[in-house]
């Protein structure tokens, strides 16, 4: 009896090793992952990823620790410098800058040379600092204007393609006793989304990026034009009142109640809209309309990422995990509607059959010819982003303070990018 068991165990172990060999050199030891995917659906995805990877490598133990997403934003510093795990979650672009500069993220440029990652070239730029890559993306999502299709039908409105049409629509909505846009700016970043779009549509994607890099002063004529366009909407009364007291979730109620007809937000808002009882017939999505016909459309599509800590103990396993996460099948699976409900980053993956994911994918593939930005708080350096978003919030409530706000932002720019 004993001999049969040993034989069985031996063959299974062999089969397992052969299986692992087919993919990569056998990995052993422990792989420690700290993840901020703490909401229920992302958490399940992360747990599945960890256990899936664990099963593929019989000699490897995957230890997963899930941290609250908001708390992680301040915890990551201690985690990386005190007791670094192998793999962590973070965000692309400037948001990873401080960790790259402090030498806390490992350079993974060699990974990007490999064949498996050639289908991720679209997002390579967002992962690049100093011509090196510092992580891999696992998901992204489009931003755009989500609107109440039923109310638009009721008022006889069409999806606008230009800013003139947008304003004309808005006037009709206001005449009907509703507000055009729901927004909650208590935590500031939502105002950054509006600035991103207005600036990209007024001055173009490249201009926006140069502003983010500190190459253009805030006192520039182009910025003034962006604020002038924004002010037109504010003066119309297009935004809901008292938005400085609401979070984006609290402001969602205005949208679901039909008091406000549109919401400029990322695709993550669709799930709560559906949870609030809206059907897909009632909500729809359109690309932020063109303002300046001479500039190409740029879009916000924030990317969430995996990184390897510079102090990682198990570098081989960490790199293998990053490759696993971006592989086409895994990408298709974790981004599907019932899981993350976002867009896969691998060009070979398929997008889930969801109205919004399909529209968003189509928009980013074919209609974002200007370029794809991350988001205000990820493209601008941390300090500039926090000063900036506070100014944007103030502008939305007291547009008359613009001159003072601009002076403050310019003072900050000169100090921060020195």
């Amino acid at each position, binding site marked *: 009896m004993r001999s049969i068991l040993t034989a069985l165990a031996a063959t299974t172990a062999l089969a397992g090793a052969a299986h692992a060999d087919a993919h990569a050199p056998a990995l052993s030891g422990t792989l420690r992952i700290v993840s901020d995917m703490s909401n229920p659906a992302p958490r399940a995805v992360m747990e599945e990823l960890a256990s899936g990877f664990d099963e593929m490598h019989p000699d490897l133990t995957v230890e997963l620790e899930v941290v609250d997403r908001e708390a992680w*934003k*301040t915890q990551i*510093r201690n985690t*990386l*410098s005190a007791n670094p795990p192998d793999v962590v979650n973070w965000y692309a672009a400037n948001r990873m800058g*401080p*960790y790259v*500069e*402090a*030498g*806390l993220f490992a350079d993974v440029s060699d990974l990007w040379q490999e064949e498996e990652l050639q289908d991720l070239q679209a997002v390579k730029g967002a992962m690049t600092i100093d011509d090196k890559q510092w992580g891999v993306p696992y998901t992204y999502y489009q931003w755009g204007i989500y609107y109440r299709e039923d109310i638009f039908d009721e008022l006889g409105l069409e999806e606008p393609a230009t800013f003139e049409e947008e304003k004309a629509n808005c006037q009709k909505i206001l005449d009907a006793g509703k507000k055009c846009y729901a927004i909650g700016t*208590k*935590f*500031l970043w939502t105002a950054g989304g509006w600035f991103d779009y207005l600036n990209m549509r007024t001055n173009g994607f490249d201009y926006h990026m140069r502003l983010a890099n500190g190459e253009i002063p805030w006192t520039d004529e182009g910025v003034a034009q962006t604020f002038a366009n924004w002010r037109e909407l504010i003066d119309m009364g297009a935004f809901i*009142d*008292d938005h*400085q*007291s609401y979070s984006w979730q609290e402001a969602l109620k205005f949208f679901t109640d039909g008091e406000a007809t549109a919401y400029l937000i990322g695709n993550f808002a669709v799930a709560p809209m559906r949870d609030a009882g809206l059907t897909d017939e009632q909500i729809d999505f359109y690309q932020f309309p063109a303002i300046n016909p001479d500039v190409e459309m740029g879009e916000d599509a924030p990317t969430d990422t995996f990184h390897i800590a510079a102090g990682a103990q198990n570098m081989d396993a960490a790199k293998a995990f990053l490759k696993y996460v971006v592989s086409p099948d895994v990408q298709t699976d974790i981004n599907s509607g019932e899981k993350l409900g976002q867009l896969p980053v691998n060009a070979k993956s398929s997008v889930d059959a969801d109205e919004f994911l399909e529209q968003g994918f189509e928009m980013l593939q074919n209609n974002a010819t200007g370029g794809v930005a991350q988001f205000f*708080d990820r493209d601008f350096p*941390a*300090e500039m*982003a*926090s000063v900036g978003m*506070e*100014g944007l*919030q*103030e502008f939305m*409530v007291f547009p008359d303070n613009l001159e003072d706000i601009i002076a*403050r932002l310019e003072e900050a720019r000169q100090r921060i990018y020195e």
Partner: protein
Amino acid sequence: MTNVAPAVPDRHPPLGGGPRRGWYRRNEIAVTPWLFLLPGLLFFAVYVIIPIFQSFQISLYEWNGLGDLSETGEYVGLANYERLLGGDRKFETSFWNNVRWLVLYLLAIPAGLFIALFLNQTVAGIRVYKSLFFFPFVLSQVVVGLVFSWFYLPREGLLNAILAVFGAGPVNILGDPDLATYGIIAAGLWPQTAYCMILYLTGLNAVDPEQVEAARLDGAKGWKMLWYVILPQLRPATFIAFVVTIIGALRSFDFIAVMTNGGPFGSTRVLSFYMFEEALSEFGFRMGYGSAIAVVLFMLMLVFITYFLWQMWSDERAARR
């Protein structure tokens, strides 16, 4: 008659006979308290005293808090202080908000006294009322902050519902940069008043009934009785209420973080919150600047703490005479 026990037990230590007592045995009375204090002192030093000096040191650097200070930090001398005190508007806002907190938070003391006097009666079920009044202090500050932010909500909030009955409003207290700080202080006063009340209730228990009786025979009543007989006896309670309220006002952080997150447009920041924002929050990568703010706040607190310690010391001395 050789084996007669002495009539009085021998209490003298054996002379040279028994084993010599060890050093610890001989110094037991002097050493033992320090042994008990040692863990506490150690923790106090590691988590309170040393970090104070570390803050002094870090405040002289430009440092993002990542890696080691000596490697990734850049020594800038007093530059952080120069910028802080040389017209940083966020600092000015925070400083004046701190002053507002200090002054208005003291209202908790008379309010607490008033409620304590009101509740210091022998009526059936008075303990229930006392507990109800004390209740807000038991709640977590975060919960109080949340409840008040719902109370203040611009449309659905209870405050606006009440105002609507009188045909006034609506107001958005936490969304108005001129009102938000006062709104938060009002929320903070609620538990702080309860705290002062309980201090005064215990104080009132210690009021000498004979003195009150004597004063009554002399014809003292109402305000005169309160001012000349009761209040002087409540002096220790007033002192403690003063100390905890001042320190509470300077430390105010939780309410701001929960209710407005420093907004709208940074109008409700206080020094502790500004320090947190600069050094530790989501976009805060300026440990040096944050430490400079912490040092300034520490200096401010030191003024009050020195005064309190001096006051306590002179009270002790007066009592010993």
